[in-house]
């Protein structure tokens, strides 16, 4: 990582509201950082000789946010995003670590690609990058990728994200084979035969617009299968971008039975519904699609009660030309790194629908735990990865200002209050909000 700005080895973040769910801390405290690690958290700490000081009065001081589901597009699709631009987008969105999906070109299904991603991240990235390896060679769903070597090379999970491994036998074997590695298999749970050629949620809006729908059952069927396979194999299965009330119910029941399942939800599935498609804006098109109001409500309830473990953005950059044409021909996916924190604070935390502590936990402690990543806590000795937030900062979301190379957001023009303020990785400030 090349820090954009060097600070002395000792840093004191003073007077902010420290929110550390892992340590059950929520109050005005100081955080002392030494040599890239958290040294102490406490009230009115003395300023050590030569320390830099950040006056964080009025700000939230949180463990660094981790987005476990992004597409950095490098290698192969650098016109959409690169490791350099994607990690800068992450930093600008308050994320100190991202996990990047394997659907690059070539696919991250072998050690050479994993090594390339890690080397690029080391030399050009500004936040931590954890690669996710493919489950099957070429994402073709036919043969297992070299999973052991991928794990050894540093892949923290396995996924054919963007595609669903339709062959249940092969997926079962992938779960078994990866058992020793302590890394979950991540399911993009969508039955291709049911999703068919759909381009939005199957419901009253798809009927009205005459767009081919994707029924909620396309997800529910696959979530049910994967939960049964997790039960059969004892493997840890993580369900990516949960989008339906039915899938929430299945995950909740499975957790109650002791199945090793975790799940994530995206900001867009929490905050938007099928109604947004009436605009014909291709930035409302993604897989899985925006669902009904009832689904969005079930997702929020599940995020609050812990059925859903974390928020992930499924940051999916696409060039304008892939998003400006006919809705049914447009590419799936939206960018999310630079809007997630703002829209979640403004639309969920400020109206009291989600507590600050839960939001911070779902963005830091919980993804760190389920992937066994360093970070997610402000305990002494933890990496000094911190996300500082200005809860009263007002913004209007303007894609032209994104650090990402792509602009495909459904949140353009939203006025919101609450924004990332500074992003600190290993004790170094890698991004700060430009002064007004």
């Amino acid at each position: 990582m090349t820090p954009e700005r060097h600070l002395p080895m000792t840093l004191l973040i003073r007077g902010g509201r420290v929110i550390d769910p892992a340590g059950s801390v929520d109050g005005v405290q100081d955080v002392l950082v030494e040599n890239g690690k958290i040294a102490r958290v406490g009230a009115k700490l003395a300023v050590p000789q030569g320390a830099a000081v950040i006056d964080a009065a009025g700000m939230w001081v949180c463990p660094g946010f981790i987005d476990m589901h992004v597409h950095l597009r490098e290698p192969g699709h650098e016109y959409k995003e690169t490791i350099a631009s994607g990690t800068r987008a992450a930093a600008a969105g308050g994320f100190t670590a991202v996990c990047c999906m394997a659907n690059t070109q070539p696919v991250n299904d072998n050690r050479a690609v994993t090594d390339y991603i890690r080397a690029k991240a080391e030399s050009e990235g500004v936040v931590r990058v954890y690669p996710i390896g493919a489950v099957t060679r070429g994402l073709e769903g036919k043969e297992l990728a070299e999973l052991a070597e991928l794990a050894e090379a540093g892949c923290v999970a396995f996924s054919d994200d963007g595609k669903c491994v339709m062959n249940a036998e092969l997926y079962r074997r992938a779960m078994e084979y990866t058992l020793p590695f302590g890394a979950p298999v991540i399911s993009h749970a969508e039955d291709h035969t049911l999703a068919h050629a759909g381009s939005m949620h199957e419901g009253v809006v798809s009927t009205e617009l005459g767009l081919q729908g994707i029924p909620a059952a396309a997800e529910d069927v696959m979530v049910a299968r994967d939960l049964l396979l997790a039960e059969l194999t004892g493997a840890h299965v993580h369900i990516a971008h949960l989008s339906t009330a039915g899938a929430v119910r299945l995950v909740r029941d499975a957790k109650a039975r002791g199945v090793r399942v975790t799940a994530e939800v995206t900001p867009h599935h929490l905050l938007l519904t099928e109604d947004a498609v009436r605009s014909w804006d291709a930035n409302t098109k993604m897989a899985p699609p925006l669902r009904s109001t009832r689904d969005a409500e079930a997702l929020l309830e599940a995020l609050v009660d812990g059925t859903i473990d974390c928020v992930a953005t499924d940051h999916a950059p696409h060039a304008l030309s892939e998003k400006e044409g006919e809705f049914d021909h447009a590419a799936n996916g939206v960018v999310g790194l630079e809007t997630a924190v703002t829209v979640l604070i403004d639309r969920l935390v400020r109206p009291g629908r989600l507590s600050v502590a839960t939001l911070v936990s779902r963005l830091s402690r919980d993804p760190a735990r389920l992937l066994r990543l360093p970070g997610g806590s402000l305990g002494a000795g933890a990496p000094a990865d911190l996300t500082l937030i200005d809860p009263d900062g007002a913004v209007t979301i303007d894609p032209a200002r994104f650090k990402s190379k792509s602009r495909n957001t459904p949140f353009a023009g939203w006025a919101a209050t609450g924004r990332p303020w500074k992003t600190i990785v290993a004790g170094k400030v890698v991004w700060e909000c430009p002064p007004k």
Partner: protein
Amino acid sequence: MGWTRKDLLTIRELEAAEILTLVDTAASLQEIATREIKKVPALRGKTVVNLFYENSTRTRTSFEIAGKWLSADVINFSATGSSAAKGESFVDTARNIAAMSPDVVVVRHSSSGAPALLARELSCSIVNAGDGAHEHPTQALLDLLTIREKKGHFEGLSVAIVGDIAHSRVARSNIHGMKKLGMTVTVAGPPTLIPPYAQELGCKVSYRLEDAIRDVDVIMMLRLQQERMHAGLIPSLREYSRYWGLTLDRLAAHARPDVLIMHPGPVNRGVELSPEVADGPYSVILDQVSKGVAVRMAVLLLLAGGRSGEAQAQ
């Protein structure tokens, strides 16, 4: 009521009064077809581009004749034979056409929502000539004009729309228009051809032809596309025809004697309609076609000519 919209994209977004303005204007323009010299100067100097991304003989010809009778310059742009084949995107093509300053672009596209995208990109008027399974507003307008001419009014009439509702833009536009004008609509077909939540559009749903056509004023039969069979939505054309084909026997047994039989064309004779019904006394299928020109004249006139144009045509 006057006309203030830049575009005609859907029936759903129109007020009942706007629909009636279009239907009334079309009714008044029908007389032009009977003149010896079928030309009025209403749109002289205006340019109408027919931008067709899907094959269509009837609709394209109908717009072309309508434009010519109004003295507009009409250019046909068949996107299958030009830039689309060279990889130019839809929006790029649209911008190129816009650069030629047309007054109206009439667009037919296989993707739902394509005309709405054009309307956002282009400052000229856009007419939706059929987009995916979304809407086909001018077809609904000509159907409405046909119904009013035969029945004298709209309020209280009942209509059965039969066949592949799920993939039909004609059905959607008609459902919206008929509901707004006080008619009751039943959609009927095998469940695989009825879209989910069809009731939410404000219509009744029937899975039996005999029930659907009982006591209705109008039966609108839709064309069954062969590819529905390959997609696993129906087992065979033979079986479809057996249960959903409208025959003289079925009509005599279940329908009212003064029922109107409509079809947006082209008819699969022997599949959804038996030849005796298609050509029989109940059928108004050719009336629909001839009213198509009047409706498209009305649309072009209201969008490109405004009220003054209307006056000139009178």
